[in-house]
């Protein structure tokens, strides 16, 4: 019977798998400090965090969805569309709104509601209709963006109610509010996935949906909830971004989703579901933010930036592959 005892070291190691990117972050910090004295200043690092705050919410959303074994590309379009439509519902027609005259403070709840509604629709098609999540959310990426372009006619909305600007531009206790919000949500995500039954249910569903069902987890309901949560987080990311930029451009969020996936996957979240942690995803976001910051500080030519960037993603991927020890899929 002695042979049956699993060797404990292995397990301990597994815990550290979330943190394979920590050495990469340290290297980036050292390299950055070396390349530019400004880099390690509090101001610059705060900027990096603020810049990553809204995209990090998308990474959080995508990590939850990926862990549950699904996929959502449409999040990036929600970042622009949800605040844009919410704002148009509130502002007068003269400022480019629908002229419904809804009260200004409603704008954030409306925005989150729109995000949630997109999640409901995605969930409906993917879970109830059992369509391919990749293609459904790809089509939704296009549609949701169109639903912003259509009503705004591609114009930037810049007469915004004060309430939607506040979160993305305020400073709390000396740090941008967006950083606090992202930090709280990530902490909630880490705790929720680590210590809540619902959070653990995501792992169970992503790991083996049939087994989860047999264990009494209401798989469809949980998945649907995750899509709704994802849409809501994307809308909140849109609110933060709107506040940071002071207006809603027609391209807000466009092109983010690739970075979101890259951050989640190099952070150890599996595209196959059931594996990865929110903490890991967070390290992925930080790596990408630091790389961007260093490239900017060094003024690497815009033509060659993508190459450097892509190579760093590959290297991070290789590192997490070697540290993780298992083939990826």
């Amino acid at each position, binding site marked *: *019977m002695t*042979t*049956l*005892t*699993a060797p*404990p070291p*292995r*397990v301990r190691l*597994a815990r550290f798998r979330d943190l394979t990117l920590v050495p990469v972050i340290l290297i980036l910090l050292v390299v950055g400090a070396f390349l530019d004295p400004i880099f390690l200043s509090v101001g610059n690092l705060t900027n990096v965090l603020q810049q990553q705050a809204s995209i990090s919410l998308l990474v959080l959303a995508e990590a939850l969805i990926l862990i549950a074994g699904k996929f959502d590309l449409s999040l990036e379009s929600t970042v622009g569309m949800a605040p844009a439509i919410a704002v148009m519902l509130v502002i007068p027609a003269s400022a480019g709104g629908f002229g419904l005259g809804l009260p200004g403070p409603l704008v954030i709840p409306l925005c989150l509601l729109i995000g949630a509604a997109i999640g409901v629709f995605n969930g409906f098609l993917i879970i109830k209709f059992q369509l391919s999540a990749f293609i459904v959310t790809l089509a939704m990426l296009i549609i949701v963006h169109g639903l912003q372009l259509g009503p705004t006619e591609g114009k930037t909305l810049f007469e915004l109610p004060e309430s939607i600007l506040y979160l993305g531009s305020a400073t709390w206790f000396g740090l941008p509010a967006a950083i606090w919000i992202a930090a709280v949500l990530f902490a909630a995500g880490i*705790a929720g996935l*680590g*210590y*809540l*039954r619902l959070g*653990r*249910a995501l*792992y*169970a569903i992503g*790991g*083996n949906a*049939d*087994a*989860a*069902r*047999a*264990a*009494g*987890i*209401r798989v469809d309901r949980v998945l649907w909830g995750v899509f709704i949560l994802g849409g809501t987080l994307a809308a909140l990311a849109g609110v933060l971004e709107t506040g940071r930029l002071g207006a809603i451009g027609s391209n807000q969020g466009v092109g983010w989703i690739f970075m979101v996936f890259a951050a989640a996957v190099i952070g150890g979240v599996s595209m196959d579901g*059931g*594996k990865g942690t929110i903490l890991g995803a967070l390290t992925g976001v930080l790596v990408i933010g630091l790389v961007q910051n260093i490239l900017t500080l060094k003024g690497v030519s815009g033509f060659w930036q993508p190459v450097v960037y892509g190579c760093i993603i590959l290297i991070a991927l290789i590192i997490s592959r070697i540290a993780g020890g298992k083939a990826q899929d």
Partner: protein
Amino acid sequence: MKRFGPTVALNGAGITIAEGETHALVGRNGAGKSTLVSILTGLQRPDEGEVLFSGEAAPALADRDAWRQRVACVYQKSTIIPALTVAENLFLNRQTANGLINWRTLRAKARDLLSTYEVDVDAEALAGDLNVEQRQLVEIARALSFGARFIILDEPTARLDGPAIERLFARMRALREQGVTMMYISHHLDEVYEICQSVTVFRDARRVMTRPVAELPHDELVAAMTGEATAAYEARTRGAANGTVVLSAESLSLAGRFQTVDLSVRAGEVVGLAGSGSSGKVGLAETLVGLHRPDSGTVTVNGTRVRPGDVPAALGAGLGFVPEDRNREGFVPLLSVGENGTLPIARKLGRYGVVSPARRRSKAVQLIKELDIKTEGPDQPVGDLSGGNAQKVVFARALVDNPAALVVINPTAGVDVKAKQALLGAVEDAVERGAGAVLVSDELDDLRICDRVLVMFHGRVVKDVPRGWTDHELVAVMEGIEE
């Protein structure tokens, strides 16, 4: 009654299990046993009919906890989630009544549970790192932990070796003494006689009989399952093998699996490979066909020294292979019977890389006939076949090229009596045609067709046992009790 599209999986089938007994459910592959299990455990809704527990109507489908207090189940398909720890798997979806999960308490509870049921597994290990037996024990412990007085075990022994099965049975007997009712599904009829009091037989989606085990002779049971009189499989006698060596290995080693193994198989000879769990027998067989590249040593197939770790070279030299796990390595579920059967000989079905569908079809029809595969035809996807028939397709693939040497691993796992006979018969047929075979199995019955059995222990061949062994002798060697 339960339908899946056009398939009627259960048709007016019923089963009544008395309290405190261990009730066997037997039937051929695809008879509807697992479907009945999923209805009895509240995973699926019957199209017609109802389930009663102690005379009371079953709870609503959505109320999983109520179901699990009435009936616990070890399903045929693993319900372990590999990426989670053993502790969490044990308490899946009930890690805590409400509020935050206290992992320390959970681990402690898990250790308690594991020690209550004498399962020696580390509660913190990832379930994916456990071996088959350990996983099964975890499933059993979990099933029992709900306090249900009725437990269903769907083919729990299909992937366990002898000692593990003995340990399982000891556990089941202890449970029965505590008054627990059990339903036990297996294709090993001797196990039914060993552990069960009554037996229900399903055939073609219907119940054909229920009888106390004690008054039911073995032949009659088999006849009820198959619908015809079937004699138990008798190993054929062969003359002493003195043909050429068709498969040999010299001082083959693979770190962590086996060391310096020598082996040679002659034409017309079946060589068995036996050993308890982790003895390295499967690793050895897989290395022979090239699935692993050995650290040292050579493999010679039919006179050709094949490149180590090169499956196509080994197959090309005249080897046929039946892998350990048919679902993982045996067949491509979406492809047809014909295509799966002819994968290794695709190059022979046409010139210039072209595969002629007509020739493939005719070859497939021949294979279907030879192995008596029950299928709608050569174009049916293998994924739609029942377990036993899928295994026959895997055999067909191994035999399609008239191999000089055959390597067969656990050929009868999870297949019914009738299929088992056909499969063992197919091995013997091939050997009579002049092939040599290596047969790896955890089942002593299978090993009876071997001319000699090589017993492995901790990665080494410890004994060459000639035909005529008794179960007891062989098990003793396998357990390393007697050298």
